[in-house]
């Protein structure tokens, strides 16, 4: 029996909603998979597509991006801007051959600790099924290899 694949997932979240939702999951003592590493940003508007690329470069098998529900943004419309960028970036990644299942977007409010825990579990499970992102890791390995010719 092969060992269970533990995917590496990096999450970028806004501090006002999703980070607070993750805290709520903690104070409610909900249990979820330990595969996600969270980076806290002030707002989804601050989350650059560049972050996603760097997460992949660090060997992430999946990336999660999450913030306040539309209309609830602490900064009134940072998340509306983010939504447009994600729409475009997501379709770009798809066109480049990066499965949309590896880059997940969600709205999680400060009250949705349960949703946060559930989502982490689902995403971890989904990415575990997809397997490691070998194709990208091959690119990373290539950068570490000596010249061939």
């Amino acid at each position, binding site marked *: 029996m092969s060992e269970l694949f533990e995917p590496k997932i990096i999450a970028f979240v806004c501090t006002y909603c999703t980070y*607070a939702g993750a*805290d709520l999951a*903690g104070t409610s003592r909900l249990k979820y998979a*330990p595969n996600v590493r969270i*980076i806290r940003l*002030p707002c989804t*508007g601050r989350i650059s597509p560049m972050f996603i690329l760097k997460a992949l470069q*660090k060997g992430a098998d999946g990336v999660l991006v999450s913030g306040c529900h539309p209309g609830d943004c*602490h900064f009134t419309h940072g998340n509306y*801007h983010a939504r447009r960028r994600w729409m475009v970036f997501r379709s770009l990644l798809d066109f480049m051959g990066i499965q949309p299942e590896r880059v997940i977007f969600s709205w999680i409010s400060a009250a949705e600790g349960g949703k946060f825990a559930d989502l982490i579990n689902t995403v971890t499970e989904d990415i575990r099924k997809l397997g490691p992102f070998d194709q990208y890791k091959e690119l990373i390995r290539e950068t570490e290899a000596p010249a061939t010719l």
Partner: protein
Amino acid sequence: MAKIGVFICHCGENIASKVDCTKLAAAIGEHPGVAVSVEYKYFCSEPGQESVKKAIRDNNLTGVIIAACSPRMHEATFRKVCAEAGLNPYLCEIANIREQCSWVHTDKEMATEKAMDITRSMIEKVKRNNKLQPIEVPVTRRALVIGGGIAGIQAALDIANAGQEVVLVEREPSLGGHMSQLSETFPTLDCSQCIMTPRMVEAAQHPKIRLLTYAEVEHVDGFIGNFKVKIRMKSRYVDINTCTGCGDCMTKCPVKKISSEFDCGLGKRTAIYTPFAQSVPNIPVIDKASCIYFKNGKCKTCMKSCQINAINFDLQDEFIDLDVGAIVVATGFQVQNTAGYGEYGYGKYPDVITGLQFERLATASGPTSGKILRPSDGKEPETVVFIQCAGSRDPSKGVHYCSKICCMYTAKHAMLYAHKVHHGKTHIFYMDIRAGGKGYDEFTRRAIEEDDASYVRGRVSKVWLENGKLMVRGVDTLLGRPVTIAADMVVLATAMVPQPNAKEFAKTIGIAYDEYGYYNEAHLKLRPVESSTAGVFLAGACQSPKDIPDSVAQASASASKVLALFSKEKLEREPVVATTNEATCAGCWGCVLACPYNAIEQKDILDRSGRIIKRVASVNPGLCQGCGTCVTFCRSNSIDLAGFTDKQIFAEVMAL
């Protein structure tokens, strides 16, 4: 070289039971740049805090990581600890290994792994933290209130009564707004003028209020605590300081047949006029478009009639520049133009009128001295049909929303009519009766039960004239059949819509608005009286349809926000603000568009001779709220956000 101190908190058993803190401290001790890596039972306790301070001093630490509970718990605590130990408080970061690690995981090994990652990532961030200083913004303790209706007056009085200066600007010749046009007010049926006029006078005479009527805000610059406002004083052609308000000029004016705006066209006024008898100030203005002198260069009858020579046809508009610290926007609403409802015959049949016109008919000081008379022949109508939602909740007419006040005022109209015309009959076509509010539902019940208002649930399809009667064709959806009522008068409960120039005016003051032109609050639920721009507050129907109690409540809320702002000489703000790199900015202004707070301005870079070399974006730290939306937009990476810089986030990711 960085000397980072990492303080790993057990939080009793809360962390230590799921994260092997000893192992964590040992692993973190190996991390590049870490000088101290220690664990302790409760770092938030007094001895815990002291040990952090001591470590900072003894090791000359350049940054501190507290690996403990969420930053939302104790970030402020430990920043203060750092400051007390002589370290800039912004060189402290929290690694959240409780809420987001020990509390949510069961496998100790994996939780420890995760805690290591979280801590390492924060170490790499804190290495790149900058010594930030809180931003101090001086506050000019003077408020500008725009709009002299009930909301504006209330806000102005509340602020002034607390001892702060207020400048109250009204664009019409008199204070009063829409409320001064009303007859009685629901749900108590007290006379609008009776409760309004004392407030108007109080505002005008208040030593802390500077009243500027017939004036408009031309330009607003600056930011919270420091607005610079330019106000245009429209010329009245009457010297406001000499005029005694005797009214001789109005009596003598030969142009008497101008349709009165205040009376909604039901009454007449002269070319030199005050909008209504109780105007505040009671000083007339000359309507340049109707005045014979301005048209033909001859007349000046008013000037001759004025015994104190207060009239001067050469007066010009003047401009006043003001420094204010806060702005209350209370610019109100307007009644929707009913011309869009051709089927109701408004404009075609004189006896089809709006609700506001009905108010004028019902007012004792109105054109009919309070008698309900038909505009066409001055006869008393015996059957009146009221049509609710004549505009509101009608997407086909562009108004999706409920105007909120129409159900109540229509019930009031039916009652007023019943009280004045005892044999009269009222029919009210309605979609729903929305009577939420203190005493409101009881009020509509009274209209039905005591004043015999006949409510018909359904829409009206057509109004036409037949044998001197207005035939109202509608449907009674409860009975499921069409009805036709022969009426003597039809009253339309027209929608409340934003002022015609609402959107342009929002741009002038720099606040956000919705698709209709209603001004947006910073947060619909939690910050309902603040606009999206810091230091600008909202009151009354400029934000959304409101009745008098709501408008007054919001005005007082705005006033309290202003007073809170004025309670200190300087504002202190978190230094999480964006800055631009002027050398690399390409001047595409995407950030200007993306900024929710209008905090980014265009700045000219000049050479020594004053010639513009290039234009770049520049962030006003007084306005910036630190969301970072601009940073992400910038293609050339020419904006960064203090506290969440590109370098910091990059390092956080690269440490994972």
